[in-house]
């Protein structure tokens, strides 16, 4: 009996320490990312991912950090490095959580980064995949503001390209902003970004 209590106490304290560790580690990563030290941030998230197999968040941020960098990159080798890293982190988590809408949105963003770099090479093969990913994410999680935003932004890109009417897309962007206002993430590390992007996209609508 005593033994069991001791084991329990050890387990609980272990978990608590583990959680504290996770919190500190993730915070450290976020901070490095915010201050522009993307390589270091990516490396920290990778380390956390290797230690915390149950959480999809560290790999989500590995992918997120690298995809964000890729959108700003013009050099192919560098872009390829970022997106390869993002893709391999996403592959690991999508294999475990194929129905996670946040991961699907991020996968769509990885493809979009390739299309943005060279539409002639990647547009034909990847744009179908992107719309499929948003369609699936919408089915799984229709109220997720990032799903609504991502889908609207992708449609906006093609609508601008084809010169079609933007107003239905603007309505969707407005809806995403409402959803952002009412969104509460599960934890402080769960994805909670996008409102600023939505506001910025909406300003292009008018």
């Amino acid at each position, binding site marked *: 009996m005593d033994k069991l209590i001791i084991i329990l106490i050890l387990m609980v304290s272990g978990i608590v320490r583990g959680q504290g560790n996770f919190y500190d580690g993730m915070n450290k990563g976020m901070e490095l990312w915010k201050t522009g030290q993307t390589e270091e941030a990516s490396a920290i998230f*990778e380390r956390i991912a*290797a230690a915390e197999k149950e959480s999809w968040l560290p790999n989500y941020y590995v992918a997120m950090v690298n995809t964000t960098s890729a959108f700003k990159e013009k050099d192919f*080798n560098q872009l390829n490095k970022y997106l390869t890293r993002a893709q391999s982190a996403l592959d690991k988590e999508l294999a475990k959580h194929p129905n996670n809408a946040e991961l699907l949105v991020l996968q769509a963003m990885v493809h979009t980064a390739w299309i943005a770099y060279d539409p002639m*090479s990647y547009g034909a093969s990847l744009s179908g995949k992107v*719309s499929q990913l948003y*369609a699936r994410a919408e089915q799984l999680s229709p109220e997720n503001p990032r799903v609504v935003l991502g889908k609207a932004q992708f*449609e906006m890109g093609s609508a601008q390209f084809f010169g079609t009417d933007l107003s239905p897309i603007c309505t969707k962007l407005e809806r995403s902003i409402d959803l952002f206002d009412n969104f509460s993430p599960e934890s402080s590390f769960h994805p909670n970004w996008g409102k600023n992007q939505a506001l910025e996209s909406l300003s292009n609508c008018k």
Partner: protein
Amino acid sequence: MKHIIISGFLFLNLFSYLHAQNIISGVVGDTRGNPVFGANVYLHGTYDGATTLEDGSFIFSSSQTGTVALVVSYLSYREYRREGTPNEFVNINITLREDLNSLDAVVISAGTFNAGEKARVSVLKPLDIVTTAGSAGDIIAALQTLPGTQNVGESGRLFVRGGDAGETQTFVDGLRVPQPYTASVQNLPSRGRFSPFLFSGISFSTGGYSAEYGDALSSVLLLETRDRVEEEKTEISLMSVGISLGHIEKWDKRSLNINTSYINLAPYQVLVPENLDWNKAYESLAGEAIYRQEFKNGLWKVYTAFDAAEFDFNRENIDTALSQNVKLKNKNFYLNTSYRGTIWNNWQLFTGISQGHSENLTSLDERNIENQENAFHFKANLGKRISNGVRLVGGIDYFRTGFEEVYSAAPSPISTSGFNLQQFAAFAEADVLFSRNLAAKVGLRYSYYDEMEEAGISPRISAAYRINENAQLSAAMGKFVQSPGQDYLKFTSDICTEEASHFILNFQYQKERRLLRAEIFQKDYSNLIKFETGSPGFNNNGSAYARGLDLFWRDDKTIKNLEYWFSYSFIDTKRDYRDYREKVTPYFVAPHSASLVTKYWVQAWRSQMGFSYNYSAGRPFNDPNTTQFMSGRTKDFNNLSFNWAYLLSSQKILYFSVSNVLGHKNIFGYEYAGTRDLNGNFRSRAITPTADRFFFVGFFWTLSDNKASNQLENL
């Protein structure tokens, strides 16, 4: 020095708030002793770690005790792992080994052009085949803008580096396509049979190809169908030459594509008369289907195509001065099914069969030629990566071709000819990556032809060396054999295979979205088939050589929204084969060819516009009025084509193209009468295109849930 300062600084910093912690430090380098910058160094299962600095050094602290694993990971290197106690990890030197299978390893490029999604260095992009002005959606026509090919307008087939069109073999998903071109008659060009949008990858080899492919003397064209489709859609096309309808249905693990088309050139010819006197314009009905099914460890595909075509016209007969009636009816069926998957212990298995059936009825006035070809191919390959840098693959091929021809010209008796050729081959090949900068491929192919009772071994070797991140050198050489064509085999089995050897040296430079390729080659032929005019005997006494230089430059970067490529080929070749009197440059070879292909996107007009310009120097022809054999030269060939794709809306496209905008009067060669006229001369007639210009207008409409999808990729 910098290293010491940074380390010292970090030390002080760390010591100010750390106690009872272990300091872990060291330097990470690669096998050549260069520092690795940005590697992730950490203790496995903890958050303790650091990234390496520019000099490869790292330092961090950990309160871990006992046995831990130090891990170093970095893209394109194999993960490093070492077990030990934290205090062992002080000032350690770590060497990372390259992951030889990573993306930036050297790829052998001698002789090969890769296009499509899977290629690392793409010469053509998926859309290029269909948006190249003048190609009109024909894969073969688009490939003719690449160096190493000859523009032989009266044929429409692929002639590569001094080789005849019959020296190129086409494979779909690794399996041979016995009849890759639409049926035609002499001097009327044929097209490739396949719609380009079915393929996700195209690899066109102008020589030096892998031992996996045999019975081709000059070149192989490898087409890979898509492994999966992304969405369901229906596509409707209305064209000035016909209509087509396509549909894609998708389930969880399965998908089905169906395409049908009906082409009839009659209405077009009413509007734009041609140089030919048509009784019945070209008409065809075609359908194709692809079924794919995914299994846990593999993918099964079935591709099948059917088409029936006919035409009838009258042409001037140089010998009789009367017109000759030419009729053709063709039926063609092709089936290809393959399975690719992993078995046992990571062995990769590929196996498949293809069957091609073709029936032709050609009538020239009262003479009827009716033939049938049945060609079967079975193939099985087994491959395995046996270590980081070595992959072995081996396999077998079995080909069977049955051909039968009936010739009737009343009142003469009916004559039949034909053959049944079986061929067995086996190959083994090793891909070796010595480092990320040096790779080689070594293979052997054994083949046995039963009709000729002939066996032989063909060695092939190629290698590539990466000079730096952007430049590489490759070389390839090998021996290639091919069975003689049906024109000879139907008469005799008393001949043996034709042979060629290739030597290729290639330089490739690629940076951002620019690519330069330069290649020199030497090709020697032996055992080519020869015969004497009017005598029934065939022999293998022919020979030939070809040597030259190919240049390719592609630039998608310099001018915004403009993509262009430029190709130039120089070739010096002489050939003694068929009934040639001596070794001369054959009729299908122009010493200089060049093409410039441009595509420009105009956002304001939602349009892509393109120009292609093709040039070839004059080709040889034989003028029997002179004593010198093949001494004639046609004038230079020029063709400027233009196309315009306009996006009416995201799913509706209007497409317009015109070939030979400037209306050059091109001449492919000359035909001569068999007998002298009253003045003692052989009369001649120029072989010209059926029309000076060809106009195409099409409307393409896609119906799908995804409103951004359209048929631009099909044009």
